[in-house]
């Protein structure tokens, strides 16, 4: 028999002792920092040594012993025969965990800064139950972490494909193997993502630049103006000075915020890599904590593809994966991967959905009540804003009214465009929702993954037979507002799709 890795009980990397010791010291420090501060402030007394330092030293010694014991009693191995992962741990009381392969939800590899320094990875095995059921091995060498993660994820696939009733799997398998790909995003790619992220910011920067150029031209013109204007210059100058100063300040703030965004993008997505293996999508990223997430298409509950015109120009698109989640960490289950080329988006979709066509042939649009509702909200907000300013004695009321009218019109136009762009519909296997005028997004939910649906009707919609719909999935909800009953009738098709399948959905 070939020797399989991890089949014998083994310890984590020896450097793990250090990690255990550090986390213990940290806990001790957190408990005692007030006391330590007191000692430092008061200055060393005669009996400090006797009463503080000696117990502290003893405590440290005990902690070292405890760390060693914890390390040496932390044993794990893979039982290939029983198809489970076995972990024994505990210094005073021993805990033995047997985790069958088919209970494994997800295997992640992460690195904190400390782990980065000492060169180890932590491996987390998520199970179907609550958060307390998850297993964490905190110090593994890179090779061990990666191979163990691969073994567990592959084992899990074997376990689940066994009860996969669909025929023809072998053919599909081979096809999938042939189509694996890796996509990395380097520094330049991340820079592009950071620069094109917030559209509003980019938009404002451009307009302010134009403004400042315009004002420069104007000042140059002013130099050449006639004597007639010279009489007015004191007035213009002071005003102008303030104006340019304001613009510079604005640009400074905007550039700063842009830098912050770029920094954020770098921290979150450093060394971003997305990879498709035979059965999984693997995402690896992050500077501060290195995250690695591996999931099967089955676990994907909802997919969003997002882009904006500037990003489209640079061929940057974003995937947002919503995975099945336990109630406690809803936030964790959303993974966004920006900076992807359109080819990768296509390949990813085709892998995740078995190459089925995701295209809306006929779509629905929201009822015009959708638009009216938005306008009403904007109108109320504006009236509140203006009425709250009524008590102030403005010298230039006309200006205020002008500005608010213009911005009101712009907002209404924007909502109108949003309204025009919004479309949704069912295909044979999917619910697809497209929206957005600037930031365009496409949401895709496979119909059989739906957990339920809520049909809502406020009483002011009753007369017109208009509804709001909320689709529930294990990876979050999707709401569509103001739909006609023609679309609501198709809920029956959705239910038919969910209830006529017994495919595993998470």
């Amino acid at each position: 028999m070939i020797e399989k890795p991890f089949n014998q009980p083994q310890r984590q990397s020896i450097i793990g002792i250090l990690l255990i010791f550090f986390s213990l010291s940290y806990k001790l420090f957190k408990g005692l920092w007030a006391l330590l501060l007191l000692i430092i402030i008061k200055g060393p007394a005669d009996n400090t040594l006797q009463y503080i330092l000696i117990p502290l030293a003893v405590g440290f010694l005990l902690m070292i012993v405890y760390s060693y014991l914890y390390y040496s009693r932390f044993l794990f191995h893979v039982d290939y025969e029983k198809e489970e992962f076995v972990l024994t741990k505990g210094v005073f009381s021993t805990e033995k965990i047997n985790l069958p392969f088919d209970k494994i939800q997800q295997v992640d590899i992460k690195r904190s800064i400390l782990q980065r320094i000492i060169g180890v990875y932590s491996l987390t095995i998520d199970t179907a139950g609550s958060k307390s059921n998850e297993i964490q091995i905190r110090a593994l060498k890179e090779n061990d972490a990666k191979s163990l993660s691969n073994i567990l994820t592959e084992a899990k696939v074997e376990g689940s494909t066994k009860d996969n009733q669909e025929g023809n799997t072998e053919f599909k398998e081979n096809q999938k193997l042939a189509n694996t790909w890796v996509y990395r995003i380097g520094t330049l790619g991340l820079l592009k993502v950071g620069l094109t992220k917030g559209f509003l910011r980019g938009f404002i920067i451009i307009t302010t630049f134009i403004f400042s150029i315009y004002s420069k031209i104007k000042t140059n013109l002013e130099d050449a103006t006639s004597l007639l204007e010279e009489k007015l210059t004191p007035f213009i100058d002071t005003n102008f000075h303030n104006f340019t100063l304001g613009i510079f300040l604005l640009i400074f703030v905007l550039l700063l915020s842009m830098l912050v965004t770029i920094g954020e993008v770098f921290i979150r997505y450093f060394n971003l890599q997305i990879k498709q293996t035979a059965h999984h999508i693997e995402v690896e990223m992050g500077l501060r904590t290195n995250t690695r997430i591996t999931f099967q298409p089955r676990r994907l509950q909802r997919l969003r593809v997002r882009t904006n015109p500037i990003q489209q120009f640079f061929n940057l698109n974003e995937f947002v994966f919503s995975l099945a989640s336990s109630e406690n960490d809803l936030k964790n289950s959303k993974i966004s991967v920006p900076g992807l080329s359109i080819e990768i988006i296509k390949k990813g979709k085709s892998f995740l959905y078995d190459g089925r066509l995701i295209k809306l042939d006929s779509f629905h649009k929201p009822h015009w009540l959708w638009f009216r509702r938005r306008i009403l909200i904007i109108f109320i907000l504006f009236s509140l804003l203006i009425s709250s300013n009524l008590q102030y004695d403005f010298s230039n009321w006309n200006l205020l009214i002008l500005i608010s009218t213009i911005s009101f019109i712009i907002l209404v136009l924007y909502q109108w465009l949003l309204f025009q762009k919004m479309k949704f519909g069912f295909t044979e296997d999917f619910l697809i929702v497209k929206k957005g005028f600037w930031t365009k997004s496409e949401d895709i939910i496979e119909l059989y993954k739906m957990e339920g649906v809520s049909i809502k009707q406020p009483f002011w919609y009753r007369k017109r037979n208009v509804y709001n719909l909320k689709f529930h999935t294990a990876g979050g909800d999707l709401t569509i507002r103001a739909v006609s009953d023609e679309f609501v009738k198709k809920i029956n098709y959705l239910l038919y799709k969910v209830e006529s399948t017994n495919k595993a959905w998470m």
Partner: protein
Amino acid sequence: MAAYFTNKEVSIASLPQYEQVNFHPISKNQRSKALTILLISFLFLLLPFIIFNQLILSDPLATFVSVFTLLFIAFKCVDVILKQSKYGYALREKDALFRRGYITTVTTIIPFSRIQHMAINQSLFDKLYGISTLKIYTAGGSSSDIAIPGLSPKIANSLKDAISKQVDSNDREAI
């Protein structure tokens, strides 16, 4: 591409229509219970506050707050009375339906195969009026969970049994 499954056209009109389901009403005691709670909160919380304010404090802000709260309670009373008729539940072969709300009427449909577990709750006031609440949980967040109030414990239990029977038979089919 997808040659491994058959693909008959499904006409939506021929599918079972959820709109035609007859909803069962819930017990009228639910309304009585809700009104009792409102009455108690008025008598023991708001009324003492109003009296205290009128006799001793006479603060205009407190007056405003108490009038506002009074209006809110009145509004809640109307809501409780109106929404009683909107409460309704139904079981079909493969899913459970629950309708509630007057201002916004919400109908939630949960396929049996997506139900994780169920629970029956009975609060103090529920016991007083002999009713209970059946809670149905799904795997996702809490937004798709439903709680059917105003069921007599007997009905709640039999509903729970009926649903778990369906859930089990679904599981068996899946294996």
